[in-house]
């Protein structure tokens, strides 16, 4: 895979446009690629991720399914077993739940169960997370559940250019990949995105801001929150390192441990409910592999142990923000 970004022309796109472009390129490049889900066809998806693609590639490549998530994932698994490259959209990550039997029982087990005779090269895309006043269950962040499934990879991009390259890599991947897209970023971030086909490596975390005072570990919608916190801290002369995990599983232990060895302090930021969230795994890995370098407790800034508030007025009190991240940073620095 071409890890580096190609030196081609770029245009400014938001994240959903970048996803749309990646899907377009994948459909063009590989006839085995199929796009389906609820409202992905004529409507082009509730967030427009597949806008225009049915018109361009036809109803047999890009189509609507009945309203049944277990059916969607099961159908996709069947297509993949028989050699296709299905890319399924689940309308919101909170609606992956009806499909969890297909996911936990089959998606990641099939290769192992058949000792490699069969595999499931399938991509499951879903918008996740809060910050945009959605109704109940439309702001869920269930990544931790997916990261506890053997044989599947979980990728969560934090910018348009990363999203495009990572999604194309996910579609090329011989194993099932969950691709979660932060709803807050769909139209919330715009950036230069290279034209044409390129992939970015799955399984690597990346340092989006260098620093020596403390490390902030984050992904998806929390990356911009951590960057904002880092900017504020920088004004006070405190240089924070911001590490975008990007791929949650397989976990890039090396990059995480290197950062902790450098800063000696770690804060993990995620918007899912705190208990049992993926941040617990990040903290556990650090406590396992880098304890001797730690000069402070590993703190987690996350959603509270309650459902994501489905009432917008107080939503921002649930989702971590720069203020809460900085409070945690001060605690580890004071320590």
């Amino acid at each position, binding site marked *: 895979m071409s890890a580096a970004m190609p030196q081609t022309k770029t245009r400014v796109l938001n994240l959903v446009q970048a996803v749309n472009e990646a899907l377009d390129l994948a459909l063009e490049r590989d006839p085995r690629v199929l796009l389906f889900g609820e409202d992905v066809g004529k409507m082009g998806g509730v967030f427009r991720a597949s806008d225009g693609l049915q018109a361009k590639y036809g109803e047999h490549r890009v189509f609507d399914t009945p309203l049944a998530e277990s059916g969607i994932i099961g159908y996709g698994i069947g297509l993949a077993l028989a050699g296709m490259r299905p890319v399924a959209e689940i309308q919101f990550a909170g609606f992956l739940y009806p499909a969890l039997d297909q996911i936990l029982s089959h998606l990641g087990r099939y290769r192992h169960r058949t000792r490699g005779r069969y595999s499931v090269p399938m991509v499951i895309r879903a918008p996740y997370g809060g910050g945009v006043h959605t*109704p109940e*269950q439309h702001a869920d962040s269930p990544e931790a559940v997916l990261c506890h499934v053997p044989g599947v990879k979980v990728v969560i991009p934090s910018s348009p250019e990363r999203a495009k390259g990572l999604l194309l890599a996910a579609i090329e991947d011989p194993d099932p990949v969950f691709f979660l897209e932060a709803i807050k970023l769909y139209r919330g971030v715009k950036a230069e995105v290279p034209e044409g086909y390129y992939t970015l490596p799955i399984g690597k975390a990346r340092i989006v801001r260098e620093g020596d005072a403390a490390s902030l570990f984050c992904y998806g919608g929390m990356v911009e929150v951590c960057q904002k916190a880092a900017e504020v801290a920088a004004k006070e002369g405190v240089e924070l390192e911001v590490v975008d995990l990007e791929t949650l599983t397989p976990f890039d232990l090396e990059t995480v441990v290197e950062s902790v060895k450098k800063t000696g302090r770690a804060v993990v930021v995620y918007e899912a409910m705190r208990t049992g969230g993926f941040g617990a795994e990040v903290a556990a890995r650090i406590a396992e592999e880098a304890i001797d370098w730690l000069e402070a407790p590993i703190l987690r800034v996350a959603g509270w142990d309650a459902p994501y508030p489905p009432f917008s007025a107080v939503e921002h*009190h649930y989702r971590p923000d720069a203020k809460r991240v900085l409070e945690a940073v001060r605690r580890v620095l004071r320590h």
Partner: protein
Amino acid sequence: MDTVRYLQDDGTPLGELPFSAEELLSGYRALRRARHFDERALVLQRQGKLGVYPPFRGQEAAQVGVALALEKTDWLVPSYRETAAVLTHGLPLASTILYWRADPGGWRFPEGVRILPFYIPIATQIPQAVGVAQAGKYYGENWVAAAFIGDGGTSEGDFHEGLNFASVFGAPVLFVVQNNGWAISVPTEKQMKVRSVASRAQGYGIPGVVVDGNDLVAVWKAARDAVERARRGEGPTLLEALTYRIAPHTSSDDPGRYRTEEQTELWKRKDPVMRTRRCLEHLGVWDEEREKALVDELEAELLAAVEEADRSPQPEPWSIVEEVFAEMNADQKAAWDYLQGGTR
């Protein structure tokens, strides 16, 4: 399966009606009240006084007709679109406004009102409604549950599992499918290859009934028969109301992306509210004057409700970690303290 109708498209009765004039007047009142709410809701939404709102225009009869067939002691289990049904079964206007304002003040329905909250995860209410219905048997209470679902929702596994449970246990439940032609952008023809969802009833050994969902009399009568059947201990019924979603899926949807308005125009001619009104006029118990008086009354009621809703206090930040368990656990307490302004 043939479709049960009592009124022609223009409202003229097709024959003897199963309800008295008084009954029909009260039915029309509930229908008109729901319509009035829906119209005002869209205005409030544009003014930022409601959050995302799923309108029910065109489906008033399908919802109100069922609610009218229920006793106060019966349970109503809505999806997210059944505001008309819920209002008719007794949810106060102010609570309804607060709910759609996404204000926690609206999340706790008043005691005594046997309505479950609006269901966002599609079809999950179906097996739950069966449990609610069965519970009455243990209490020696003869209550019935009416559960709503859309044409799209029938594709979910929970629809099948719930219907089978109800059939096997002989539960006193009425399943109401509002077949409104669309699941967001997906037309019913792409959702299923059958003309009528009710044709699935016989696969569970239960009666399936198809009614003109824009005919209040037909819906009300069919629902009343099914409720009586359930109360007699004869088990569940699958009632399909053929109707149409005149409005967008929700206040944030743009139907122009997936449908032309021709079909919508055709269905507007079968408007359930106008049809019922014409029926009453035909019976000589309604006129322009009475209509005006009713609308004024409904507007006054609504304005009072909006004012009441506006008086409801802003949600406190710490409310987001309350009521998760009967007793807060240590993690929630820490969050609660933090949100109260202390630091952790």
